[in-house]
């Protein structure tokens, strides 16, 4: 079989169409460059009835929305998950990393919680505080103008709070809290935990004519058909494709490697078309990798040549290293005062209306870095699992658990909306020994060598998770609630989720000034290959306790501006 060359040569080829790839597609195409976008999954538009899941009822699914096919339930918009048929990954020894991948235009932005937090000034220089990990070479001031631009372009609601490390932005007005969120606020504040309106990329007030205004169905995870939430496909790739005429989309195209010339500079990418299973080559002056932190690392490590024997731009042996995900732990409480609630439409936006940013000083704690708290509950739409062990809460009221018959209806009704949950999402320390590498013995169904992971939590993260549970218990009690379940002990890592489960993995191609210890420079340009840029979570030096999307978007915009300038000046 021969490699088939696409006839056109592009200014830029972008691998991946999630947050980073979508932003690069928009900025680069609008500045007049010809762009190829290569995506491993199909075209996706939530406005297309054939792909829509918004406003469907549970009974329209034969499994009533169960998560047996899609990881987050049958109506979640995401194609992909922790396991993808034909695309395995492996682990070193008994270490464990669960790798969540999307295979669709827009990537994981079709599923995510839309929690959009800027990093604060301290988040870029955390090493100064505790000596752990590494500082970013850039500071908040470098990225602030781009955060501002992202706010205005994409839309985010929130409130100006004047908190030093939770910088304010250009916010749309937030929705009022729901009932259980007011209970949470009461319980949290009594515990000494700050509570403010959440900050999410959902359009609560009109920002332009292309995007709709939120109609409060709570279904952002199904991807919004009127584009009132941020998905990279809906808000960046589709408009750039339609409006500029300079974007070619290569869908169901799995990139194998970056191709290089005799000088070791990139010439384009080689991909497998999943439909005809042939190999193709796309030529471009610049390659932008945005395939997700681990996928981009995999492409680089698989791009070996005489000039780059250890993988593209990897003489530092840093590609794949410093992989880190957010910490996470969750807990539920039963609030008897929320029993027998009056029923009204409480859908609201998809996710929380209030949250708690990190509120403590680590000097008084036995772990570094912080976490934020997300809250959930309310009168949600029933889905598979609703009514399971329908009266297990009877135990807390001194009543027998179990039974059947007419009483089920009364019990289901009285407990509907009476359980409130909390999730802590925090910062882990990036370690050189947490990494992904190429498994020499395994390929995927396209013949591409797969990743092997080596990831272990340290005591920093375990102690943080323990602190989360202690805090959740106090908050629940201060809400007038009863804590459900046993507090997870040391044998269960204090309830700390397996790495990869929070789906915030970053760090595999980290940014730095020293080519010996980093992969890209301040503009996400590879130290060793000046026409390759990485605009996903890979360049993150540390991930803060903030969800990474807003920072990926801001950095991708900044990098794209740099690429446009460099091409103008013929520097690359």
């Amino acid at each position, binding site marked *: 079989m021969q490699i088939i060359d696409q006839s056109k040569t592009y200014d830029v080829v972008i691998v991946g169409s999630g947050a980073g790839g979508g932003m690069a597609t928009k900025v680069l195409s609008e500045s007049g460059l010809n762009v190829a976008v290569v995506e491993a999954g199909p075209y996706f538009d939530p406005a297309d009835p054939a792909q829509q899941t918004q*406003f469907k009822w549970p009974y329209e699914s*034969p499994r009533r929305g169960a998560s047996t096919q899609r990881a987050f339930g049958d109506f979640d918009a995401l194609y992909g998950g922790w396991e993808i048929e034909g695309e395995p990954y492996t682990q070193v020894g008994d270490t464990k990393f669960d790798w969540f991948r999307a295979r669709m235009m827009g990537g994981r932005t079709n599923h995510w919680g839309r929690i959009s937090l800027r990093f604060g000034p301290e988040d870029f220089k955390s090493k100064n505080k505790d000596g752990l990990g590494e500082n970013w070479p850039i500071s908040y001031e470098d990225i602030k103008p781009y955060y*501002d631009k992202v706010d205005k372009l994409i839309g985010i609601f929130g*409130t100006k709070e004047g908190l030093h490390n939770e910088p304010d932005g250009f916010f749309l007005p937030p929705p009022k809290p729901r009932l259980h969120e*007011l209970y949470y606020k009461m319980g949290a504040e009594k515990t000494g935990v700050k509570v403010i309106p959440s900050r999410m990329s959902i359009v609560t007030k009109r920002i332009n004519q292309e995007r709709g205004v939120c109609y409060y169905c709570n279904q952002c995870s199904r991807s919004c058909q009127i584009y009132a939430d941020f998905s990279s496909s809906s808000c960046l790739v589709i408009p750039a494709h339609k409006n500029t005429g300079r974007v070619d989309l290569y869908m169901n195209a799995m990139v194998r490697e970056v191709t290089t010339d005799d000088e070791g500079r990139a010439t384009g990418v080689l991909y497998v078309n999943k439909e005809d299973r042939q190999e193709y080559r796309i030529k471009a002056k610049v390659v932008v990798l945005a395939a997700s932190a681990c996928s981009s690392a995999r492409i680089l490590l698989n791009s070996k040549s005489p000039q780059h024997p250890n993988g593209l731009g990897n003489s530092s042996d840093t590609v794949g290293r410093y992989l880190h995900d957010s910490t996470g732990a969750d807990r539920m409480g039963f609030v008897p005062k929320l029993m027998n609630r*009056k029923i009204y*439409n409480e859908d609201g936006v998809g996710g929380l209306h209030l949250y708690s940013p990190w509120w403590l000083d680590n000097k008084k704690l036995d772990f570094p870095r912080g976490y934020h708290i997300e809250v959930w509950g309310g009168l949600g739409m029933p889905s598979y699992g609703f*009514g399971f062990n*329908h009266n297990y809460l009877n135990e807390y009221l001194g009543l027998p658990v179990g039974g059947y018959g007419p009483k089920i209806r009364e019990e*289901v009704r009285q407990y509907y909306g009476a359980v409130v949950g909390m999730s802590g999402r925090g910062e882990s320390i990036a370690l050189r020994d947490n990494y992904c590498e190429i498994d020499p013995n395994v390929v995927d169904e396209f013949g591409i060598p797969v990743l092997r992971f080596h990831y272990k939590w340290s005591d920093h993260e375990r102690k943080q998770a323990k602190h989360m549970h202690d805090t959740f218990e106090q908050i629940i009690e201060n809400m007038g609630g009863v804590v459900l379940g046993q507090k997870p002990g040391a044998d269960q890592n204090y309830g700390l989720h397996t790495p990869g489960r929070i789906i915030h993995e970053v760090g595999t191609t980290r940014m730095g000034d020293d080519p010996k210890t980093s992969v890209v420079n301040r503009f996400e340009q590879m130290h060793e290959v000046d026409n390759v840029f990485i605009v996903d979570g890979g360049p993150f030096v540390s991930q803060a306790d903030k969800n990474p999307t807003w920072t990926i978007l801001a950095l991708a915009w900044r990098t794209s501006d740099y690429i446009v300038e460099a091409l103008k000046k013929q520097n690359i």
Partner: protein
Amino acid sequence: MDRRQSIQSLLMGSAMVGALALESCVGGDKEALAQKVWDHQYGRTPKEMEHDSRLLAEVFFNEHEQKTIHRLAHLIMPANEHGDIDQAGTLEFIEFMVKEYPGFQSPLRGGLMGLDHRCRKEYGTPFISLTEDQQHEVLTSIAYPDPEAQVQRQEVSFFATLRNLVVTSYYTSAVGIAELGYQGNQPNVWDGVPQEVLEEHGLSYPEAWMPHFLDVTKRNTQAEWDDEGNLIT
């Protein structure tokens, strides 16, 4: 295209992804299957649709098992003025789930046989032939987990699994959702918790935040900010 036409085109193999699976379905009543496939037309990938169509075409429970599940489901959720397990599609759902999640198969099939075995031993007949009083006698003995036990008896676990599937099927159906009173899943404007509910719970919105919350009457006015990020529209 209306429902009838759509089902027709499915049968002709000329429309939608579901037709693909119908083509490969050997035997069976194609029209009944087309009906089932039509009931589940919602944002599926071709691969998912093929999987679902294949499962919808297969049959797991035999007639006796179906009758027993039907009777048990009725006892678990007896009909009331809002609806019953037939309207909720309970049997179809359980039939689908055991194929979707094979982990349910042995516990449910074996649980049904265990139940019949016990009924034959104690009453001389399988469960469905018992009198209603006898059925209640049997169920009362397996419907309550022992709070002291580390592991529940098999028949208690069996009943709990079946009850979970029956209750969830009811409350995820149109009649169950209507009975529960859930009012969402439609375009709407959220403007906070109703005042009388706030009062009932002795809660209120924080004064300091009030000016910042969304004014729903201005939601269609284009957002503009001053240089400091203050919203001015």
